[in-house]
């Protein structure tokens, strides 16, 4: 079946099997590998994308269900310059291996769109569906807060 999805502002189509998962549609059909596959069982959040602005796990959605919708992936964060989240993750050492980072930044983006100065608890609550095995989360929380401050400052 033909699926058309607007990815990072550009409409993209592919002919897929109904059982194709959204994460594989993005990685394999579209060749965008910033969206990762971690646990593949709806636990880790490495495959997080924004569906019409809302973070979801793309390993637990069929590409067919995304037909006609807007998806944002980590590749869509940079707009000429790095996004404030990308800058702050770099400055605050918000990543080590980087596997969870795309998901963390996209959840951070959705959070900061509602609230540019979240508390520690608010950030930790927002990222509670995303696992990081390196950082202990402290610097991820700092990074998201710093990005919020940068966005507010602009």
């Amino acid at each position, binding site marked *: *079946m033909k699926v058309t999805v607007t990815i990072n502002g550009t409409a993209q189509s592919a002919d897929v*099997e*109904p*059982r194709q*998962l959204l994460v594989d549609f993005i990685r394999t059909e579209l060749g965008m590998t910033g969206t990762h596959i971690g646990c*593949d*069982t*709806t*636990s880790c*959040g490495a495959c*997080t994308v924004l*569906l019409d602005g*809302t*973070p*979801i*796990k793309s390993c*637990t*959605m*069929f590409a*067919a*269900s995304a*037909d006609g919708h807007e998806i944002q992936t980590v590749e869509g964060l940079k707009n000429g310059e790095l996004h404030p989240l990308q800058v702050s993750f770099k400055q605050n050492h918000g990543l080590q291996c980087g596997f969870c980072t795309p998901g963390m930044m996209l*959840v951070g983006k959705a959070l900061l769109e509602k609230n540019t100065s979240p508390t520690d608890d608010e950030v930790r*609550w*927002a990222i*509670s*569906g*995303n696992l990081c095995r390196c950082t202990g989360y402290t610097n991820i929380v700092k990074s998201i807060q710093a990005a919020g401050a940068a966005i507010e400052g602009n």
Partner: protein
Amino acid sequence: MYPPAFEYWSPRSLDEALSKLQELGNDGRVLAGGQSLIPMMKLRLAAPANLVDINNLTDLAYVRADNGHLAIGALARHADVVDNADVKAISPTMASAAPWVADPLVRNRGTVAGSIAHCDPEGDWNSVMLAVGASVVASSSSGQRVIPIGEFVVDFFTNSLDEGEMVTEVRIPRPAGAAGGAYLKLERKIGDYATAAVATFLDLAGDGTITNAGIALTAVASKNLKVTEAEQLLIGQTPSDELFGEAAAIAARACDPESDVRGPAEYKRAVINAYTKRGLDQAFAQAKGGS
């Protein structure tokens, strides 16, 4: 991981969805949020031949206060009932449970009605629904019927829907008096299933007498367990520490937990005892505060 191949249908209206379900009979399965169904298909625990995707039926994405009850449409996501004014006003038990269902990303996609229809004994919503006396609207191409939740939840992953039927709405009755409720869930981490959880609900008359009570348990039996004996004990009584303690002891005796990675059976039974007492205390404090 990939699910077995299936035919995919994406109806644009409820009528279209219901006639497709009628046509497919037992070979058709509704896909709503898919947060339980898709993982089960990937793990090959479910292999529906046809999926009827209802995500385009956006008319069903409502949470609203109707006459006498809170109505949750089939496409309302878990996130839609978190911090929702109507939910808070009508069902304190539901408002208490909402932030503890799965994790934030799953809540953005999974649906309340889908979770209820799934009848996983480790799912949170059916305990809430059993405690508050909810009902489920089942629709098919030949009409609609309203099923009390106690008759809807049959057993382990089994509901009482007939072939060709789907859940289109869940109804939570508005309490008659000053009400309170809680959902206390012990989980190892956010997103894990409950080790054990308890939904409580109390409705009080003006003189403080309990006119309605609900207690239901998660993850400690082959289905979400309504503890009718404890509820009957409470109704007509005046709240007291002793009364709540007795109800909690009944709940602990009624459950039938299994030892697993989340803990030994006796530990879970002790959690049910403590959480039932604590949940009733919280429900009472809230009901008093609101009266």
